[in-house]
């Protein structure tokens, strides 16, 4: 009994440490991005670049961006971070979420240009909302750990399905072939996975 309690305490402590580390990590990088925005600080930018450039590049590669364009688009994400750092608001998003939305927008632009050569708009992603939402009353910074917890609790197949459908380069039909499920099953299981995510989050976020 004592041993059980001890092991539980150990786990709780290590969980707590992981959470504390994550909070420190978010504070560090949100501070650096703020520093770039306010003072155009090259050293701060270098640290952000070293931390996120490899991640952005790896993420864009998993979305199926052509190898020869990968560097250009990933670098474009990084220059956007430099140009828009002053718009970053720590109360609305964790650093990595903000960077994700920039990478997503550059990905949209790249897809449009590839598919539609007649597309004349300079920046196809301007259709995406950039919120200045006065309703946001809680810190989105802390949401990242809630999301992290939720993703850990989500059954592995459901997590993989969500990743394939939304954060990698697979159509529903391709998923159906890979998983050996009928197309309708892919759709319904995906919906179940999203429901499960919302349920795990409960009232923490939604």
């Amino acid at each position, binding site marked *: 009994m004592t041993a059980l309690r001890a092991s539980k305490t150990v786990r709780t402590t290590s969980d707590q440490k992981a959470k504390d580390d994550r909070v420190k990590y978010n504070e560090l990088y949100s501070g650096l991005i703020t520093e770039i925005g306010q003072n155009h600080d090259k050293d701060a930018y270098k640290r952000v670049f070293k931390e996120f450039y490899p991640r952005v590049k790896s*993420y864009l590669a998993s979305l199926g961006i052509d190898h020869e364009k990968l560097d250009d688009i990933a670098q474009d994400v990084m220059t956007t971070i430099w140009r828009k750092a002053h718009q970053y608001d720590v109360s609305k998003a964790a650093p990595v979420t903000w960077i*994700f939305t920039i990478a*997503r927008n550059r990905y949209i632009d790249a897809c449009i240009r590839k598919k539609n050569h007649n597309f004349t708009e300079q920046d196809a992603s301007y*259709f995406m*909302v950039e919120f200045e939402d006065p309703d946001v009353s809680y810190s989105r910074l802390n949401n990242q750990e809630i999301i992290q917890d939720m*993703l850990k609790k989500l059954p592995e197949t459901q997590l993989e399905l*969500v990743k394939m459908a*939304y954060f990698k380069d697979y159509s529903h039909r391709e998923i159906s072939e890979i998983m050996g499920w009928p197309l309708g099953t892919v759709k319904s299981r995906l919906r179940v996975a999203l429901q499960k995510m919302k349920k795990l989050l409960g009232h923490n*976020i939604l």
Partner: protein
Amino acid sequence: MTSIKHHPRDDLLFAYASGKCTPDVNLIISTHLHYCKRCRDIVAMAEEVGGEILQNHTDHSANTVTDDDFEQFWQSKIENSAAHNHFNHGSADHDTIAVSKNIPSRLNKSPLEKHLQRVEHKVRHRSFFSFSERVLPKTDEHSRVSLMNIKAGTKMPSHKHDGGCEMTLVLSGGYQDEFGTYNAGDFVIMDNKTLHSPSVFEDEACECLVVNMSQLKMAGRFGFLLDPFFKLIY
């Protein structure tokens, strides 16, 4: 203020948040988000999931950045380029252009308003007996976007959308059909099999943003929308 009852389904919101939708779909979803806190929260959640997935892309042993790599990038892309002094301060384009081209004032600063300002000279106006339409320039050969203004009390004959599917977002006023009542902010998808006969409310014209997607498109990337459950969303 009426509350919004008809929302895009979660899988569509996730597709939007992860960058998997076409520009026209992005436009109608982002306009819905201007009305709907619930869907903004779901999109924010999906973006946070995306952030976490980006964070976990740690298998980048081949991509480690050295000081030299950074210096090279810095000199070519930041220091010696327009980016160095180019910070997107404020939104200059907004200050110089008269706001809201006949769209509800709550859509000020929305992507729809910005889009209308950019493409104003390319918008085609069409007028019919009971409605007028502003057709926006195409961003995609398989879909069509328009702003429709339908007179108060108009009863439309029963029809279906043979071409593919139709997404409608009510911007102001409202209508009802066999399936429900739709007010400002409500988002509806109709497939190509369902018949409906919409009637605009008696007291106010109904302004809608409408995206029509062709069958070809439906079978491709957006095939996931075509299933027996999507006739009515929520």
